[in-house]
């Protein structure tokens, strides 16, 4: 069976309570669902013998600025068995800026989540080492948020401690 129908079908069977929003744009399958199911779904996709999404390519987020759910966390995973790329998405609201960490599923997610935290300020629950990736720890802002100015904020980057 075609993977584009197989994956949603399998997920619906396994998680009947979860609502999936499926889109297929430019030959790329995207699944969107509620953020509380992220760890279960990811570990299912990884461990299922028919799918085997063992490679977590990339984790990032999108800031929609004006939408109700301001952020969308995007997971880009790859199945080496089928050479198939799948994108998972989960909305995160600014008021409750947290999502469960998938670093227990793929260890590669560790740094990718740290980077997302650094750039967008989305906290990842149960992350083993949630520090900033690029910016110094004292930095207060999250640079890739749309309300952060391109030129930066004067005085926001502290000098190193003596």
């Amino acid at each position, binding site marked *: 069976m075609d993977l584009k129908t197989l994956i949603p079908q399998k997920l619906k069977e396994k998680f009947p309570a979860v609502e999936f929003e499926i889109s297929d744009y430019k030959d790329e399958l995207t699944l969107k669902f509620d953020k509380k199911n992220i760890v279960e779904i990811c570990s299912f996709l990884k461990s299922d013998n028919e799918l085997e999404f*063992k490679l*977590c*390519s990339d984790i990032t987020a999108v800031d929609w600025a004006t939408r109700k759910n301001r952020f969308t966390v995007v997971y*880009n995973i790859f199945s080496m068995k089928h050479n198939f*790329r799948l994108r998972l998405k989960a909305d995160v609201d600014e008021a409750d800026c947290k999502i469960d960490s998938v670093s227990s599923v793929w260890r590669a997610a560790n740094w990718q989540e740290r980077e997302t935290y650094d750039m967008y300020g989305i906290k990842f629950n149960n992350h083993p080492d949630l520090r900033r*990736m*690029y910016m110094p720890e004292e930095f207060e802002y999250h*640079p890739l948020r749309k309300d952060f100015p391109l030129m930066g904020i004067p005085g926001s980057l502290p000098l190193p401690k003596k």
Partner: protein
Amino acid sequence: MEQLEKETDPKILQALLASRNDYTIEDALENEMILNMGPQHPATHGVLRLLLRLDGERIIGCVPELGYLHRGYEKMAENMSYYEYIPHTDRLDYISPMANNVAWVLAVEKLAGIEAPKRAQYIRMMIAELARIASHLVAIGAFAMDVGALTVFLWTLREREKILDIWDILCGARFTNSYTRIGGVANDAQPEALAKTKWFIDQFEPYLSEVEQLLNTNRIFIERIDGVGAISKEDAIDLGFCGPNLRACGVEFDLRRNAPYLCYDEIDFKIPTYTEGDCLARYFLRIDECRESAKIVTQILEKMPQGPVHADMPKKVLPQKDEVYSKMEELIHDFMIVNFGINPPVGEIYHAIEGSKGELGFYLVSKGDGKPWKCKIRSPSFNNIQCLPKLVIGHLISDVVAIIGSIDPIMGEADK
């Protein structure tokens, strides 16, 4: 220790002290020491900083610190048009800028629905493979230099210089080429450039064998790296190792084969793999990949079709400069594209190529205007450095230098 607590960031120190250690010794605390390596260290290939927790000379903990070269390229991408961003991709992996250009334009073309003509695609393949050879030559040379074999660096850089000369003819720049354009390449490959490429490939093999002889018969070099920094297949995939490093662990994964782009499905090539996953395997693999890339370039030169190098889509593809100065239509299109951008339809795509360090991908979100709403660079070096603690733990401090050299991180790309 107190001094250290005062000077080091408390969170970094905590991460370092909590990092897993597989070694148990009774009086560990008395023998332990924390060493700061980098960011100004010649063996870290840029501005990588490592905090090492040592027991005697053995490493029991390692925390890499990134961000010393963070220039915010993802933020900048959100504030400039797709065309303007091409030169910035040169600065990501500055050892193989051509491959980054190709990755960016392929992502934008996928988003905007443009297809470059066949000849342009062949030229892109050629420059991407030359970039791979150049990058691997630097990697091999710098790696050998890190472990003490200085001569090889000069030899490989001499070969790389010839590739830079080809790029010089092709686009007028040796580094930071910005040669590709959305919908094609900046200018057609000149016959001199193609002839020089052919000449280079023909004379390349004997030189590569020379380098190989110099290193493979060097007992110090081999014993220094044999069995050092080994990682298993499962760990490598789980930790996100990619590119040549992953293939050296026995995973036959190459995006040129697994998710073909450009015209790689028309080319016959092998994907070299090794099973050991140590520094020696990574070195062998890079040598083999240079040979395969040379074969690919030979086939490309044979198969390269004639024809245009720009897609015929006036509203999306910049017109040639001489036409802009002489024709009204082209002038209007040039003005519109430069000032308002190419406005791809609303949507999001991810496109990755097999860059010289691994999977180099761009995730783009378009809201239908001239600038990308979101651009995420999936950089291979970032993911490769993530595996570094796993590789170095249990080895001696002098092996760290060899391991960093063998995974070939480029900080411009890891820090974005």
